[in-house]
């Protein structure tokens, strides 16, 4: 018996020793760094309200009040920046000495609001009197043709980004980010005074007048005739005074309310509005014979709409079922959706129906 106990103890020691070596701690899981959302207000993702994460819940969704007036009309992201970027605002490290030449003249910075169109967001600024927008509008084409140097190009790009074309929401951000990068490495390229484009014409109209990168050129044009005070000014002009870019351009004056930083107003189409949209589509839809008694056929129409109610791109129509009749029904739904455009939906809720999904059950239509 003693021999058995000894051998058993040895076996256990061996097994435990192996366990100690092989059962090491599991490697810790890395969590993706995603924005956390205040849970109280999520009933539907599309209803996530734009606001401030630390603020109390309010009736009216609004982020922290911003200090500057709104300059970019279609901005989605909250921030004090002049361009609408998706990146988080970069904290200012140290205040740079502001030179006199760079101080923006107050008369030159009208907050431009090209179209007096109703803005869907409730937290939009008290609209400044719209500067004659017609003057601004026609400009883009000639300037885009010129493309004299990276700066002008960058400005053009920011400009096209900020002019309220009917571009999808997400687009302005990536475009607007590019100039920020380009401007970072600008100084070497701009150093040649002969690279002067026709900045005065541009500066007269662009909303980005405030941007310090543009100022240098103005001082250049001013200083080239008189060489004596040129160097200091030129050096000053070449210095990159642009703050690290980041943050959006949407301003808000309302009291901060609980919400996410992502842009949304939290409104949704009412049932009657949804029904109106459905009805409009149904009117044009000739459901092929036989589809109505196809069991469980459900057609889902996903489409992107412009502000005027036109369909942007191709609508995504999908249906359950694979029988020929059902496929025919899905095809007919696609035609119907295209035929019925434009749809008239409440302008102030554009955010909610910019991407709209409508479900149809053909059996309900007869």
């Amino acid at each position, binding site marked *: 018996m003693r021999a058995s*106990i000894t051998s058993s103890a040895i076996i256990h020691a061996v097994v435990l020793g192996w366990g100690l070596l092989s059962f*090491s*701690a599991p490697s810790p899981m890395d969590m993706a760094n995603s924005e956390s959302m205040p849970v109280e207000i999520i009933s539907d993702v599309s209803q996530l309200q734009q606001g401030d994460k630390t603020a109390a819940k309010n009736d009216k969704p609004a982020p922290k009040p911003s200090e500057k007036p709104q300059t970019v009309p279609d901005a989605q992201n909250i921030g004090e920046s002049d361009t609408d970027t998706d990146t988080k605002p970069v904290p200012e490290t140290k205040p740079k000495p502001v030179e006199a030449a760079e101080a923006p003249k107050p008369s030159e910075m009208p907050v431009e609001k090209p179209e007096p169109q109703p803005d869907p967001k409730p937290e939009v600024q008290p609209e400044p009197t719209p500067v004659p927008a017609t003057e601004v509008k026609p400009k883009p084409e000639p300037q885009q043709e010129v493309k004299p140097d990276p700066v002008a190009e960058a400005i053009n790009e920011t400009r096209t980004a900020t002019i309220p074309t009917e571009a999808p929401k997400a687009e302005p951000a990536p475009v607007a980010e590019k100039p920020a990068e380009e401007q970072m490495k600008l100084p070497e390229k701009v150093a040649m005074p002969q690279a002067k484009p026709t900045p005065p014409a541009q500066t007269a109209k662009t909303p980005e007048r405030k941007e310090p990168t543009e100022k240098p050129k103005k001082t250049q044009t001013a200083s080239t005739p008189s060489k004596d005070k040129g160097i200091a000014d030129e050096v000053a002009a070449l210095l990159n005074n642009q703050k690290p870019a980041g943050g959006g351009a949407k301003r808000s004056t309302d009291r901060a309310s609980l919400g996410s930083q992502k842009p949304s107003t939290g409104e949704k189409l009412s049932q009657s509005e949804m029904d109106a949209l459905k009805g409009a589509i149904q009117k044009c839809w000739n459901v092929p014979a036989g589809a109505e008694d196809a069991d469980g056929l459900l057609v889902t129409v996903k489409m992107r709409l412009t502000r005027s109610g036109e369909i942007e791109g191709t609508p995504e129509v999908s249906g359950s079922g694979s029988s020929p009749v059902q496929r025919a029904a899905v095809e007919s739904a696609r035609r119907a959706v295209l035929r019925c455009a434009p749809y008239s939906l409440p302008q102030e809720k554009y955010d909610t129906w910019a991407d709209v999904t409508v479900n149809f059950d053909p059996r309900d239509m007869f």
Partner: protein
Amino acid sequence: MEDLAVAVQASDVSLWGLFWQAGLIVKLVMIGLLGASIWTWAIIIDKMLGFGRAKRAFDRFEQVFWSGQSLEELYRNLGDKRTVGMGAIFVAAMREWKKSFEKGARSPIGLQMRIDKAMDVALARESDYLSARLTSLATIGSAGPFIGLFGTVIGIMTSFMGIAGSKSTSLAVVAPGIAEALLATAIGLVAAIPAVIAYNKLSSDAGKLTARMEGFADEFSAILSRQIDEKLPRA
């Protein structure tokens, strides 16, 4: 958040770490179960070897017994050696036979009964020896999981008290405690499963060996009975 990360880093999830962080009761349970596991395997090893030996000894004895060798000679060969199993039964019966004849037995029925009794006693002793300690296997097999579960319950209670203390329900706070508590159940199962399996196998093996001995005892009893009839003339 960083505190939690540090806590997670600090808690060692290796086998030794889990054991070392456990509370006193859980530790005792784990140590006890480890001892039970060692004991289980000691019994298993011992019985396996012992049964193998016994089976070989039975084979050898039966071979010799049926080889036509005279019983007297066989008894003389075995008498001075320590015998197990069938040999022990044979020796016990022969001893009783010899004693009775030396004293001059009167009744063949009385002699037969005495020899049977002696063989019964030897048989009981041998089968006791075969199935010795099998009951502790059965006990460990049935109680091991419960003991482990007890350790787990205590450990989980402790970690819930820890939640109450740290006012945090984060999984990172609770997980090490629950893991170490579950280790107790794991050890209990590790000890109990082989015990149950071995108990079933060994007890059936012991039953087979005992049945073999009983068969031999009956056979030998019949042979001796015949011998008594031959040697003692009818009164």
